[in-house]
């Protein structure tokens, strides 16, 4: 620094000159920018002063959101499943009230306030901010509303509001598919903020919480409109300056037939379980049953703790969406898919057959994997193996294929992954593999686990939805359509329906003769000699089906399963899959009756009633009595 050559000094001068030039340019930019700001101030504060002065000083502008009407939910025939109607509610803004208890007591002298109302109010108040108005009473009638209106001056901070309420006129019918709306909570707010929808929910109190109400929230809600209102010093609206009308939410047109739904639900009686019916050719879901159900209307105004406790603590778990979230071993309903795997991999092509001694043994082991029929079925080929549900046949098949090939093949039918139905919360089920077992349990895979996987036991878990979807894919010769409950979205103003197009999600390449063989086996199931002969009796159309039983508790090697000795909730689950007419499939069904025992006798009749109505328009012959599980095992049919 101390010694500089001449050129460096010149350089230095040069640099300093250029630096100051640049600094000068920057200073000019600063001046221009500040000039722009000054100009903007002049514009706002001088030119437009009167305008803003009017807005701010004498009157204040208030923006009032106008909540759009929520879209309706209609079944395929136009039957209303969810609609809105106006009701009077009595609402309290806690922040404006000194003694809440006292005020509520005073209100109670005018209009009835039950203890249930109080409890619900207390719960809602804890969940909301003190400056938000919270309903104390809903569904006030005209007299009550008038009575309060006269005395309103005595209750600052309490007001009557008239607003749209969601109502589910069918009550418990299909509540798991329709879902319900509820008051917007903190978690909902966060989600709205994240998706940038918060401003569209100004003024909205409710949001879809489950089922279609949740999945199609964006469509159903509509776009919030708003009014610019001039407000005088007392806060009353003086006049509307401008307004943008809200756009009502779209209507949902379902592929579900509510009549079919109701027949299916009634067919369950008091029993727990699930049923899904699908149109195999386009993926339309025709019925979606989860038993027992609940009344979604309870949730709309915020459910009170008593009802909530009853629903939540019930052993029957009515709030669980069984078709989507109930996981069961598929049992013998797995066999048609396993049979197809055996055929496609060339392991069980005709004229292959086995001679069934009634059990299967692994080479070098004395453990007997028993068939359900002691003594065995004699000579069994693939078609007969399905018809009579021969366990021995499928034990060997699974061993010949190996677990990876077997599970890899059936996964194309939708097992082990979500079907993609338009409801949130679906569970993917489980197709086991040695890698999965190692990851999950840090244990190696045993050959015996492959053996029992062949008959749908072991680790394999499916949802009723997957079972129905797999049946539909089979009926559709390997073409998997995306299942959906909504067939069209109707714009409210124009009435134009935007149909939801069928989507192919997977295509399993199958040899037609293999599919044919499996289908023949499934048709034999409902013929005399098959495991569900009674289901097919007197049917004017051909039914292809498969029964199944899923163990709830393990049975020891030499113990005999006896329904009568076992606690009802530990009895086997009854499973049944079917499609019909077998020669031209229009409906595919999967039924699970929890602790129902045998698939053919407990679950089969439900499927038959559903198919009878759908294909023939036939109502169930006798009103289905809410029968419990049959006390004695059915003798005339084989026990799967």
């Amino acid at each position: 620094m101390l010694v500089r050559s001449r050129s460096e000094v010149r350089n230095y001068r040069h640099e300093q000159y250029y630096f100051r030039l640049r600094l000068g340019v920057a200073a000019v930019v600063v001046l221009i920018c500040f000039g722009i700001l000054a100009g903007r101030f002049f514009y706002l504060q001088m030119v437009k002063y009167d305008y803003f002065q009017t807005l701010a000083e004498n009157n204040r502008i208030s923006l009032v959101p106008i909540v759009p009407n929520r879209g309706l939910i209609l079944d395929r025939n136009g039957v209303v499943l969810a609609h809105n109607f106006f009701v009077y509610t009595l609402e309290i803004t806690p922040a404006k009230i000194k003694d809440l208890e006292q005020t509520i007591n005073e209100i109670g002298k005018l209009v009835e306030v039950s203890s249930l109302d109080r409890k619900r109010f207390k719960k809602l108040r804890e969940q909301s901010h003190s400056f938000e108005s919270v309903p104390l009473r809903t569904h006030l009638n005209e007299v009550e509303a008038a009575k309060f209106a006269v005395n309103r001056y005595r209750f600052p901070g309490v007001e009557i509001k008239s607003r749209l309420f969601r109502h589910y006129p069918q009550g418990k019918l299909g509540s798991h598919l329709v879902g319900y709306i509820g008051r917007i909570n903190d978690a909902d707010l966060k989600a709205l903020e994240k998706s940038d929808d918060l401003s569209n929910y100004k003024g909205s109190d409710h949001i879809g919480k489950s089922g279609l109400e949740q999945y199609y929230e964006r469509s159903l809600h509509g776009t919030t409109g708003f009014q610019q209102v001039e407000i005088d010093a007392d806060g009353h609206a003086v006049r509307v300056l401008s307004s943008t009308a809200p756009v009502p939410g779209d209507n949902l047109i379902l592929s579900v037939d509510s009549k079919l739904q109701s027949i299916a639900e009634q067919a369950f009686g008091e029993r727990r379980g699930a049923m899904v019916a699908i149109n195999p050719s386009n993926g339309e879901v025709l019925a979606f049953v989860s038993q027992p159900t609940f009344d979604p209307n309870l949730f709309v105004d915020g459910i009170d703790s008593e009802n909530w406790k009853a629903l939540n603590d019930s052993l029957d778990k009515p709030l669980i969406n069984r078709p989507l979230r109930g996981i069961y071993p598929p049992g013998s309903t797995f066999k048609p898919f396993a049979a197809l795997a055996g055929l496609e991999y060339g392991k069980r092509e005709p004229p292959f057959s086995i001679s069934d001694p009634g059990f299967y043994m692994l080479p070098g082991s004395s453990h007997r994997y028993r068939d359900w029929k002691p003594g065995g079925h004699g000579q069994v080929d693939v078609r007969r193996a399905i018809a009579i549900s021969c366990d021995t046949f499928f034990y060997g098949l699974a061993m010949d294929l190996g677990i990876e090939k077997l599970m890899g093949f059936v996964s194309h039918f939708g097992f082990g992954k979500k079907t993609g139905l338009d409801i949130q919360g679906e569970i993917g089920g489980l197709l086991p593999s040695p890698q999965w077992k190692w990851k999950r349990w840090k244990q190696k895979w045993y050959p015996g686990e492959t053996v029992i996987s062949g008959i749908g036991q072991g680790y394999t878990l499916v949802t009723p939805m997957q079972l129905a979807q797999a049946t539909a894919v089979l009926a559709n010769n390997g073409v998997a359509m995306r299942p959906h409950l909504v067939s069209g979205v109707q714009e409210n103003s124009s009435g134009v329906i935007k149909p939801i197009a069928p989507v192919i999600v997977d295509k399993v390449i199958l040899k037609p003769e293999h599919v044919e063989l499996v289908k023949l086996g499934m048709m034999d199931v409902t013929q005399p000699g098959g495991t569900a002969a009674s289901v097919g009796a007197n049917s004017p159309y051909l039914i292809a089906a498969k029964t199944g039983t899923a163990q709830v508790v393990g049975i020891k090697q030499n113990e005999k399963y006896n329904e009568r000795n076992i606690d009802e909730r530990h009895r086997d689950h009854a499973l049944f899959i079917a499609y019909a007419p077998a020669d031209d499939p229009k409906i595919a069904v999967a039924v699970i009756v929890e602790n129902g025992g045998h698939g053919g006798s407990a679950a089969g009749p439900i499927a038959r009633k559903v198919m009878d109505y759908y294909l023939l328009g036939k109502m169930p012959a006798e009103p289905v009595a809410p029968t419990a599980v049959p006390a004695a095992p059915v003798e005339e049919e084989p026990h799967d």
Partner: protein
Amino acid sequence: MISMLMKRLVRHIDSFLMGCLFFTLLVGLFVLYSASGQSLERIGAQLTNIVVAFSFMWLTANIPPQHLERMALPLFVLGVILLLGVALFGEISHGARRWLHLGIVRIQPSELMKIAVPMMLAWYFARRESSLRLADYAVGAVLLAIPVGFIMKQPDLGTSLMIAASGFYVLFLAGLSWRILIGGAVFAGALAPIMWSLLHDYQRRRIEILFDPYQDPLGAGYHTIQASIALGSGGAAGKGWLHGTQAQLDFLPERTTDFIFAVFGEEFGLLGNLLLLLLFSLIIARGLIIAAQAQNTFCRLLAGSITLTFFTYVFVNIGMVSGILPVVGVPLPLISYGGTSLVTLLVGFGILMSIQTHKKLVTT
């Protein structure tokens, strides 16, 4: 004796700059008192902030620029490491990851970077001054992009833009060729329509609302509309201190922080606004003069960048409050409530003072 001590104390304080800062901060306290609903508690807290910030400024002003120059690289590296720490272990608050817990203290590394980035770049260009080539600007741009990228990811758009600006000013003052500057601007201009066509509908809408708040008066546009009403209704002379209806009746959001200028403009009117602008101009002018008189490249570039960044804060904040710039979260320096950013700001002014007052000690 006492006067000797006093002299020593203020030896490195630039009196003109100090006067302007002091006066602006005083104005800020008055506005804050009004904006906070006459909360003495807030005033007390802000006074504490001011005392702390002035202490830091004094300390910085007493560090000779040569020492600052030596600290540039370590400080920058430390900052990048801390930013990395934030990205990995940072604490999330209000949806952004900005804070880092280091045992007992909680720090915000992006604040450190506001100082470290211009220092680093000034240091780099000062080292390369005799043989500056195009590649050096590319290196500078990369050095700048690292912290800016991290902070944008936090996400803190406002701060990352400001740091990007501070770095850009160093490049500009170091003599980045006009051809590149203009070429870059033209390129960006040409790219914009293509980018626009690639955006999703909802992304476009967000940008549209950014520029036209009236499209979404209940959501993103609410701040801007209410701020315009506040400013406009202030008129020529304002509604008077503590008498702004927009501010006092809760219409203005964030009125002690990012939107405090709306409170000021409503209560003090056009006259007040212009005076405040003048005050800011004096500070900026003084900063530019210090930069122009600085004796080496490092000092020049650093002083210039700090001053122009300060200007950018002022312009972007007032611009967004008065509705000519989109809303990005940038406080109004010296006026908005807040401790951390005030400390950083005054440390910057401390550097200016150091550069100015240590001048005669450097022999050339």
